[in-house]
């Protein structure tokens, strides 16, 4: 009975902590500006099914991709077993479905065990890839202590959960062999049974320990994930659903600029009349200086990033040793919005802490190193768009602060004066034609 109460309390505590954190993350994401991503629902569903559910982009790198699918399928399907564990925990029963499901139960447990073993192997290989093999993207500058530990903690945690799950079954297998009751095949864990001896009392204790370790571990993992880089297990789905459906090359035409340009181009407009702000419109700034200038989708991107680094490994600037790393852009954005979220005033509005995403997190040097080639966007398995943030930061630098590398200013002046980015006279534009005569 006491076990059931403790289990119930843990379950509720986990759910509350998880729920509160989800609320905080949701609030932080909604600090971003609005953007309409509710159109074209059928395309969005297809995108989500192919990219998130179907792991479509993961297999572009076959080794990591296939191992990831093993963990993903294992994670999703083994969670069906959680149903029994939760019912057992609350009702004080043991393998409550084994009687009613009969042969199908045997099949399910066997299936979960094979998946579990697959997850365990994949996690170990991933740990080796991260810590032993010198894979460049796991060792870039932004992979400081915490991001490295975070990734390792998750892999070790998942490994331990699978080990506990299999050990729990192994004990049940040993007890089944000794008592002669039950006929569950336990195709994987039976090989572990030898580790736990043949004393039924001890086996029961170990089985209970592993059962509790597993379920407490799962609840803890669910809460930990919300504080870690691992949120992609949930957010990959909304993030791919709300992803940009336009060609990558199409950058948005800023509405605020459109109005002013139209006014400037209109010969009938009163040159001294300031454009009247539309009703309810905030006098926003051009481009982005801080996370609150970004859209909610860009902030959702940041929370979805699991720091795999495929973006940075494809980035031409990063490959050639420049400071820019698209993954760091996403990590900085999340770190910043987390801090801004912690510092909200009583009115729920961000307070000025004298810091900003641009300058305190992302430097101008990083922003200017981008070739806007979209390799990062293409590489991301969950459709994150680091480029859009980089462009918004550039827009702020140019349109609010007039800060750019000198040669860029020269280029702007040339376009303005000559209609070309170089200092050639517009009248010479068709000189080449003479060479054909």
């Amino acid at each position, binding site marked *: 009975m006491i076990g059931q109460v403790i289990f119930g309390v843990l379950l509720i505590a986990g759910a509350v902590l998880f729920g509160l954190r989800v609320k905080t993350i949701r609030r932080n994401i909604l600090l971003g500006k609005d953007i309409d991503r509710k159109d074209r629902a059928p395309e969005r569903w297809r995108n989500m099914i192919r990219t998130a559910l179907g792991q479509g982009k993961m297999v572009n790198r076959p080794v990591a991709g296939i191992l990831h699918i093993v963990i993903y399928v294992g994670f999703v399907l083994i969670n069906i077993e959680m149903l029994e564990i939760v019912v057992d925990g609350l009702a004080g029963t043991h393998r409550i479905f084994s009687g009613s499901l009969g042969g199908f139960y045997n099949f399910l447990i066997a299936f979960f065990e094979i998946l579990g073993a697959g997850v365990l192997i994949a996690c170990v290989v991933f740990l080796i890839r991260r810590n032993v093999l010198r894979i460049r993207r796991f060792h870039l500058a932004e992979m400081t202590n915490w991001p490295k530990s975070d990734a390792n903690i998750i892999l070790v945690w998942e490994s331990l959960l699978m080990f506990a799950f299999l050990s729990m079954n192994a004990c049940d297998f040993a007890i089944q062999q000794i008592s002669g009751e039950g006929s569950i095949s336990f195709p994987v864990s039976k090989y572990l049974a030898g580790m736990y001896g043949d004393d039924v009392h001890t086996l029961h204790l170990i089985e209970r320990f592993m059962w509790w370790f597993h379920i407490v571990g799962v609840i803890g993992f669910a809460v930990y994930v919300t504080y870690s880089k691992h949120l992609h297990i949930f957010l990959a789905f909304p993030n791919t659903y709300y992803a940009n459906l336009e060609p990558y090359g199409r*950058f948005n035409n800023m509405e605020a600029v459109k109005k002013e340009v139209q006014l400037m181009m209109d010969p009938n407009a009163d040159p001294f009349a300031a454009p009247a702000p539309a009703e309810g419109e905030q006098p926003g700034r051009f481009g982005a200086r801080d996370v609150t200038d970004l859209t909610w989708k860009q902030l959702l991107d940041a929370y979805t990033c699991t720091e795999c680094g495929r973006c940075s490994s494809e980035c031409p600037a990063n*490959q050639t040793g420049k400071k820019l790393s698209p993954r760091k852009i996403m990590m900085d954005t999340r770190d910043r919005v987390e801090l801004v979220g912690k510092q909200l005033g009583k009115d729920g509005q961000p307070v000025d802490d004298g810091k900003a995403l641009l300058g305190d997190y992302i430097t101008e040097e990083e922003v200017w190193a981008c070739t806007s080639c979209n390799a990062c966007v293409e590489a991301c398995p969950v459709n994150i768009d680091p480029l859009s943030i980089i462009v918004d930061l550039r827009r702020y*630098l*140019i349109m609010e602060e007039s800060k750019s590398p000198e040669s860029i200013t020269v*280029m702007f002046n040339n376009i303005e004066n000559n209609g070309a980015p170089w200092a050639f006279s517009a009248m010479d534009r068709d000189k080449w034609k003479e060479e054909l005569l």
Partner: protein
Amino acid sequence: MEKTSIQVPTVAEMISRGEQPEVLFWVGCAGSFDDRARKITKALVKILHHCGVKYAVLGAEESCTGDPAKRAGNEFLFQMQAMQNIQVLNAYEIKKIVTACPHCFNTLKNEYPELGGAYEVVHHTQLLQDLIDNGRLTMSGGGTFKGKRITFHDPCYLGRANEVYEAPRKALEILDAELVEMRKCKKNGLCCGAGGAQMFKEAEKGDREVNVARTEQALETAPNIIATGCPFCNTMMTDGVKHFEKEHEIEVKDIAELIAEANDLL
């Protein structure tokens, strides 16, 4: 082949004759002013002329699309340029545009419609593919490239940005050369280093230049020719080849130049 003299018509001239161009050739700033890119412009004009395409240019009425300004964050300048160009294009009732610059192509195709400028915009490799498919462009010279190895460098703003991967390859196929792909190609292609307004500034500090990294990948295919579809990529790859001191063995040429050469048009 005898050197033919070509009078390139402007839209204004054509309209004053009571005619409309089948397609407007948007030359772009590089194609107009850059010495190397002008050769691409002339090659394309020769092909258009050869195939009897009714084309025209805007001449002095053409102005920068605003692409480099937009990528560098100057949305004001971009939209000013766009509105001016759209006024000109709409006044001439332009329906179809071809350009040899993927940056112009992307901007005209994707960013102008919302500002009131909706046209059918094609990259020159798409037009070349069309001309080949319709039988308007056939190989008369032939043999020039037989046995040569050609590798195509995907321009980011043609490839990833607009998913045009086949047209340039189809256009190269008729050269009867051996097409070899770099290990990073199509959607995984590596940038030449010029995009996002990098063409107009010094690169940030790093351990090497992007164009050198990309040229290295091209050299891995042991090509005779590196084919490009963008004047900026052309510059970057040409510099890259010089970096490796291979300029006497390997040519960097636009697809339009290769096709014009195969047809003895140059």
